[in-house]
């Protein structure tokens, strides 16, 4: 419901439908007006604002945690150290190993940036995950892509490309088939799939919540269908809870896959 309230044009679209359920076009639920710089490279809209908040919140939290860090952690320090432990134990060490600790700052930044950007889907009055737009997922996927190729080339020089394109143990005749597949999957599809996985999940969740918001408003407005409207509202609440979980899960998956790709580049034999 708040989705629709946050964007009056959604309600307008419903009303224009002559009393029936009229879902807003995709433009209305993902495109946001600019505060300044429309059409320019520095154009600042709601997504840009969420991106800045997704940067500022972890900076504040980690700053508060590290400001008076003590041997016995309390309060925010305890929480942030637990998050470091989580990324270290669940992402870095299983996917890369102990030598992956140098990538911890990047992976923690990635995790928090995505998670907080996603959480805006369920934050009242915001109701728009930054990653439901392709910009941030694409940018982060390019970062991951550059990182894992860079790590591979740094540690194994051109041997990395050889290992990646000509996997050992495969009969030489099959390289005609395997090498183009490996090239496509490793160097082209990986970043694309990484970006689309995050973007599509968040956009789908966003569309789902908008759909149930519009449905609830429309059904509650129609007197005979108030009960069905209540059911629709219950679904909206349930999917909001679900999206809360998806926000975390997608941040974790993106960070984990980035770590897996870096680990694969660091130890191509494995």
């Amino acid at each position, binding site marked *: 419901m708040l989705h629709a309230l946050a964007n009056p044009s959604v309600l307008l679209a419903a009303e224009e439908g002559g009393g029936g359920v009229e879902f807003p076009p995709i*433009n209305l639920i993902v495109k946001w007006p600019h505060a300044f710089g429309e059409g320019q490279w520095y*154009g600042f809209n709601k997504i840009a604002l969420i991106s800045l908040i997704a940067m500022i919140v972890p900076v504040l939290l980690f700053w508060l945690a590290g400001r008076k860090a003590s*041997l016995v*952690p309390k309060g925010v320090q305890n929480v942030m150290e637990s998050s*470091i432990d989580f990324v270290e134990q669940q992402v870095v060490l299983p996917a890369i190993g102990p030598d992956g600790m140098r990538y911890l700052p990047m992976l*923690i930044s990635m995790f928090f940036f995505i998670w907080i950007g996603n959480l805006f889907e369920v934050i009242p009055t915001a109701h728009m995950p930054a990653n439901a*737009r392709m910009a*941030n997922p694409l940018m982060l996927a390019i970062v991951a892509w550059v990182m894992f190729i860079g790590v591979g080339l740094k540690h194994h020089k051109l041997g990395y490309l050889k290992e990646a394109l000509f996997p050992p143990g495969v009969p030489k005749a099959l390289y005609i088939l395997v090498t183009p597949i490996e090239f496509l999957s490793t160097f082209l599809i990986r970043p694309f799939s990484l970006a*689309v996985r995050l973007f599509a999940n968040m956009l789908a969740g966003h569309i789902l919540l908008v759909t149930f918001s519009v449905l609830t408003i429309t059904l509650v407005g129609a007197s005979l269908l108030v009960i069905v409207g209540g059911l629709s509202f219950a679904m909206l609440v349930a999917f909001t809870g679900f999206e809360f979980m998806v926000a975390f899960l997608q941040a974790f998956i993106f960070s984990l896959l980035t770590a897996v790709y870096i680990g694969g580049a660091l130890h191509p034999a494995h």
Partner: protein
Amino acid sequence: MLASLLVLAAEEDPAAINPVVPDEIGEIFWGALAFFTLWILMRYWLLPPLMKVREERRAKEIEDLEAAEAARTAAEQVRRDYDTTIAEARTRAAEVLEEARAAAEADRASKVAAAEAEVAAQRQEAMAELEAARAAAIDQMGGDVADLAVTAASKVVDAPLDVASHRGTVQNYVEGNR
């Protein structure tokens, strides 16, 4: 599938955007600026104090564990020393007891020996006295018997007999039957 649906939707409505294609360069710019700022701050400013305190905590844990291990070893040593001391004390107590027992035994033996010697001496003295009394009694009895025998013989023969002259004969007889 979602992407293809969105593309189809975009094709149906020329005004609709294709959300798969990033159409706002500003979003990428601000997103990249925010992410790289976060990454740099995290790398050089935000994480180091927390990582440092984690390392210090780990070092402190190791130090505390080592101290606990040292304390445990020391306690173990104290316990061993205590056990040794107790064992030595018990041994010494047993020795002292044995020595006391031996001394008491020796003292008892010497006292018993002394008592026995004294008893033997007293007995010997008593025996000597008894022997002397017996001899005196026998002597006394020999004279009386001679007197009585001579008196009886004088009665038998109805004539007076000299007691003094026959006393020797009677006494010799008694002596011979002693």
